[in-house]
């Protein structure tokens, strides 16, 4: 693919951000800084900006805390991916990372549970975990998926791809509508990003 074709495809797919590599603390800070100024310029509603920013923080910190290392040609890296694009009035945030096979089932059941709950049930579940669970040794509060589902108001889309005997690739898509319910309940369409 020549560079222009690649550029066009990024334009046509409304790619806002695309990253592959290890998510470090510095990278998180930089990405947030870039996204903040970009959203400032392009997205009018502060509530939508906040949702995107919040979900982006959770997504990146998930990668920071949970991405499993992969050994390739004797080099160990905690490579992960992060992409954000705009499509049909939704902002989409995609993450991808390796995880241990034996941890898949627990994560899958958490995701399925979160996806099965209504808005009010999610709130109850959030309160329950907030009050009862301890911080894990990785620094997680066990609230990330619940919080993202609450803030996005959409189901979390995910896939697990088994890579080998020890690792699975986990990808997650979180969608955030840029339509906001107005004070009287009608939807307002906001300026879109391209």
């Amino acid at each position: 693919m020549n560079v222009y074709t690649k550029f066009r495809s990024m334009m046509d797919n409304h790619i806002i951000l695309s990253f592959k590599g290890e998510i470090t603390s510095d990278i998180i800070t930089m990405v947030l800084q870039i996204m903040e100024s970009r959203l400032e310029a392009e997205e009018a509603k502060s509530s939508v900006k906040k949702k995107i920013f919040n979900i982006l923080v959770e997504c990146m910190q998930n990668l920071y805390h949970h991405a499993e290392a992969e050994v390739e040609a004797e080099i160990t890296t905690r490579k992960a991916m992060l992409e954000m694009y705009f499509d049909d009035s939704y902002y989409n945030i995609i993450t991808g990372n390796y995880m241990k096979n034996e941890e898949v089932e627990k994560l899958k059941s958490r995701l399925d549970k979160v996806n099965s709950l209504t808005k009010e049930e999610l709130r109850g579940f959030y309160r329950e975990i907030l009050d009862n669970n301890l911080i894990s040794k990785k620094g997680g509060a066990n609230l990330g998926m619940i919080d993202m589902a609450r803030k996005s108001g959409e189901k979390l889309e995910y896939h697990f791809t088994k890579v080998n005997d020890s690792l699975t690739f986990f990808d997650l898509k979180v969608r955030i509508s840029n339509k906001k319910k107005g004070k009287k309940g009608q939807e307002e369409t906001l300026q879109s990003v391209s």
Partner: protein
Amino acid sequence: MDNLFIEGTKQTPEVKFEANTGILEIKGRSIPENTFEFFNPVLLWLEEYSKAPVEKTIVKVNLEYFNTSSSKYILEIFKRVKTVFTDGHNVLVEWYYEEDDEEMMETGEDYEDVSGLPFELISVEED
């Protein structure tokens, strides 16, 4: 005892806890990766404060963003303050949110419910 002052950064909130007035203020954003490192001194200060609080303690929380890992520590702060309250002192949590930020308002309600402390939810105009 000494007051606690921590300057805000892009990742961590400003903390201004005054032992002599009982006004404990947290504002800004709280999204550090290592939340323990940031919140531990705050919780230790509160433990000392709760031994000899002033008659009325006001906790002002004015956060723009916080990550889920901070949310646990925010609850820990309220739990420390709760001991002051159950010891018979006056406590009020002022929870500030931008008027358009429904989630931050709901989160305030969640904390009110879980902590069992008296809350005042205060809507402020956006900048």
